[in-house]
């Protein structure tokens, strides 16, 4: 019983953080048709922002607030200097953002060195939950991730900004002719998508190895989530992150991590190959 609760909690926390990264990818794709392979590096930038600020004495929770701002600004620069030039060329967005991911990774290596940076757990100790002792910070992660995912959902479906974002996604030219500044929306969307990745990296940073290679470790599962769930749909992102994150966690509890990864990736490849429109649209 305990083990089931434990695995369930682990799976849930992994799914929620994966969802944060995935949401950013989905919004950027839906809005701009940009397949952002540098998303993992934005996630990494969030973690490094925490590491840097923490080292100079800033309290953890302030760092957590700073991370999305820093990464959001980085996203704004990226949009202006790279992304903007490849709109309408989806394959080139893959390549350009791939180059970007390499460049960001190398910059981190040059500045911080190739070794991992460790970040102290800000909420040590554990909480007894349904009969198991569970690390308290993991619960914080879950709460934050769930709150952010919910907030993203509310912004998209309930706010006036969200209405405009959805209008641009559904008919860019008409939204423009109704006075929506589509150029500014693109900038804002990329910045917000980046900030979501950044805050996910910041939240996760005390729990994982913060090193220059960490981006890819999150990019691939996030990408698989997007494609498995279906591009262009927030619900699809939830389904995708649930499928990938849930299966990974549950399998990892029962076998070597590497074997679990192989199985999950193969499963995802099969789904992408045979249901290319994603599970959400594929079975509706």
């Amino acid at each position: 019983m305990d083990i089931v609760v434990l695995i369930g909690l682990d799976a849930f926390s992994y799914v929620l953080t994966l969802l944060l990264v995935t949401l950013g990818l989905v919004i950027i794709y839906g809005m701009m048709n940009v397949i952002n392979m540098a998303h993992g590096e934005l996630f990494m930038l969030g973690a490094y922002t925490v590491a840097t600020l923490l080292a100079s004495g800033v309290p953890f929770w302030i760092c957590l607030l700073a991370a999305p701002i820093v990464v959001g600004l980085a996203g704004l620069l990226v949009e202006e200097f790279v992304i903007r030039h490849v709109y309408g060329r989806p394959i080139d967005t893959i390549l350009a953002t791939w180059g970007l991911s390499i460049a960001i990774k190398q910059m981190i290596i040059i500045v911080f060195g190739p070794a991992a940076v460790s970040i102290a757990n800000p909420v040590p100790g554990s909480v007894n939950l349904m009969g198991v002792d569970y690390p308290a910070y993991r619960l914080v992660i879950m709460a934050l991730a769930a709150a952010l995912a919910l907030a993203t959902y509310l912004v998209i479906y309930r706010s006036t900004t969200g209405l405009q974002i959805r209008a641009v996604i559904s008919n860019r030219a008409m939204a423009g002719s109704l006075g929506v500044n589509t150029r500014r929306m693109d900038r804002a969307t990329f910045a917000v998508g980046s900030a979501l990745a950044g805050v996910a990296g910041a939240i996760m940073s005390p729990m994982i190895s913060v090193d220059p290679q960490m981006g890819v470790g999150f990019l691939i599962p996030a990408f698989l989530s997007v494609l498995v769930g279906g591009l262009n749909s927030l619900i699809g992102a939830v389904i995708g992150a649930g499928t990938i994150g849930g299966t990974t966690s549950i399998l990892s509890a029962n076998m070597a991590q590497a074997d679990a990864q192989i199985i999950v990736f193969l499963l995802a490849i099969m789904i992408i190959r045979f249901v290319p429109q994603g599970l959400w649209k594929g079975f509706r």
Partner: protein
Amino acid sequence: MILQIDQLSAGYIKGSQVLDGLDLSVAKGEFIALLGRNGMGKTTLMRAIVGQLKPSAGKIRFAGNDITGAAPYKAARAGIGYVPQGREIFADFTVEENLRMGLLGKPGLGALVPDWPYEIFPILKERRHQRAGTMSGGQQQQLAIMRALLGQPELLILDEPSEGIQPSIVHDIGIALRDYAKEHGLTILLVEQNLDLVSLLGHHALFMENGSIVERVDDMDRLQNDAALIARYLSV
């Protein structure tokens, strides 16, 4: 002149111009109907005015400002409302969300839909929370027009609003629009093939052929009576 177009050229494919040195001027409060057979460049002209197509040469001035090649949102904020061919409502949005989109893009209009559009077309109120895509063509057209009017434009551009809509509804829409326009001093530029609507919403008619304006008719009775005119520009 509220709208002044000089020597405008535009097209979709490099090296081939649909519009070729077109001149057009529209005075404030005028109702202008633009007529001509298919493929003569009417829609291209509308899209160039609202900024959805970048002209390759020429100037477009609106209310004294140069808006040539400006982004669509700039044309919209300058005061040009657009009801495109095929309506282009947001099918997945509710009726009310569609109307809100008419307000949101422009600063200072707030975010709440006032009552008057619902008074003009009560069906929109009734269907307020329905998905817009489920409505009939005529209702969608009413929605598209109200969405444009909510942005409080000075110039309203309508591209074939009667297309695919039954004649009685076309007539109702025409009367509602005419009354609103007269009351608010709205300028109308209408592309239309339906002469019934043209006679309702046109004070002057311009005929377009091969990318330029070839004739202006100020006496609208001629449209009904002058068979030679019709034959020259409209009939097959």
